[in-house]
């Protein structure tokens, strides 16, 4: 039996799963319907994260391995960055955007991931 998700997408799945099982996902994002793409440049491929009114889905995008491919993906918001910047939190990401080490098309993804990661 193959696992449904592994590694980085599974890490992110855990964060959302924990919010869902405790009923917090619905509370934090009651009406949110969004498709976000996150690419950790040192751990490709990218992943599609869908949040839909208290539920969520994560899917690896096997063909999206480089940040230049992100403009071709159908989504509401995307971001590509190295893992250490994601770990480093908002300040490090903002610095990375200023230094052009982070590719982002709008800040919605940052806001949503920030909320997800800040839950205890």
């Amino acid at each position, binding site marked *: 039996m193959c*696992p449904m998700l592994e590694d980085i997408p599974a890490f992110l799945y855990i964060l959302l799963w924990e919010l869902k099982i*405790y009923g917090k996902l619905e509370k934090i994002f009651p009406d949110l319907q969004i498709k976000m793409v996150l690419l950790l440049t040192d751990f490709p491929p990218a992943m599609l994260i869908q949040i839909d009114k208290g539920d969520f889905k994560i899917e690896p995008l096997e063909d999206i391995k480089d940040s230049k491919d992100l403009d071709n993906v159908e989504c509401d918001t995307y971001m590509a960055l190295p893992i250490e910047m994601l770990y480093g939190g908002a300040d490090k990401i903002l610095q990375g955007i200023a230094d052009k080490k982070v590719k982002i098309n709008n800040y919605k993804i940052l806001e949503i991931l920030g909320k997800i990661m800040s839950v205890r």
Partner: protein
Amino acid sequence: MKMSALERILTVLEGKIPDRVPSFCLGGDFQFVDNFMKSSFALTEEDMTQLDRDKVAYKQPFIHAIIAKFSPPDILPNGLDAKIDLCWQTVGGASILKLDFTDNFITQNGGYFKVLVRDSGIPHFWYTGPALLKKEHIKAYWNKEKELKPNKTSFSQLSKIRRTMLKKYDIVVAQGISGPFENCVFGIGLANFARFARKDPAFLQEHIGFQWETFEKPSLNMLMERKPDIVMCGDDYGFNSGLQINVKYWRKFIKPILANYVNIAHDGGAKFILHSCGDIHEVFPDFVELGIDGVESLKPKNNDLAMYREKYPEITLVGTIDDSEMLIYESPEFIRNSVKESIKLLGKKGGFIPGPTNFLLDHPAENIVALFKAIQEFGKY
């Protein structure tokens, strides 16, 4: 006189008789959280409002929010009244390394750690094997010294969690890091450990010394700066029938570092509990010699608990309630009777903190509630 959880635990670890037998829970995995939250005992909106306000952590595998749910109603109005006195949390191992010889993640100890989501939708993460299989891998890992250094921030977070749990929920959080055996063997593997121990002991010593100096000692020092009452470190020495390595190698390579762990904890005024799975009878006399205050896990099928109680009264026995079969398959009534017997056998002279022998996995929630209720019911002196 009714004691606080901290007084109760410290009294037992000092070899004295507390007001009642305290209880312990190591934590739980995602499957248990799923079972629990789908049971009639699940955290309610009202519980979570209080727990969120108090900033209690929900994260696996330490599940402090679920442990707090077992509180009496004067602490949590919808509490299960099956109080847990002692739980656990570790720090360390959080660094993720990239080394040239593999595309996979490597953790602080040099092992692979897999995170996955099963078809059922329930996630799981666990150690899956050693990454440092050759000497050149180990040397490449040594070159990552800077990235292996512990992060001070995680220790200050740990301290906040410990104080909150004690102050608001009367639950003691024992805190610690991984032990020297796990750190070494998770990285290089048992086969390499055995090979180096025989053929290149200086190299093995150098690797163990590297891990001690690079992250174990600095981590313990950072932990002790936060003044924990109880340090609890995990280091699984046992298989089902004996040690994973020859006892002479355990004494030569591991025991001196474990002694450092115990001494740092004691010098900082804390008690030291060791979590170690499997049959560990061969090293129990060494635990006494090192001054270890409590040993946790102690699956009854693998350990002669009555003998430990009789022969090593200096050491508090923590855990001992079989989590791999009884707590999964038996009925709440069976569990109640078994806890009664355990307390009768092991707890009448103190020195006993019962709880599941390991992390809760696929256990029915009602069995775990039955376990902690039984400790309350039969844990009176």
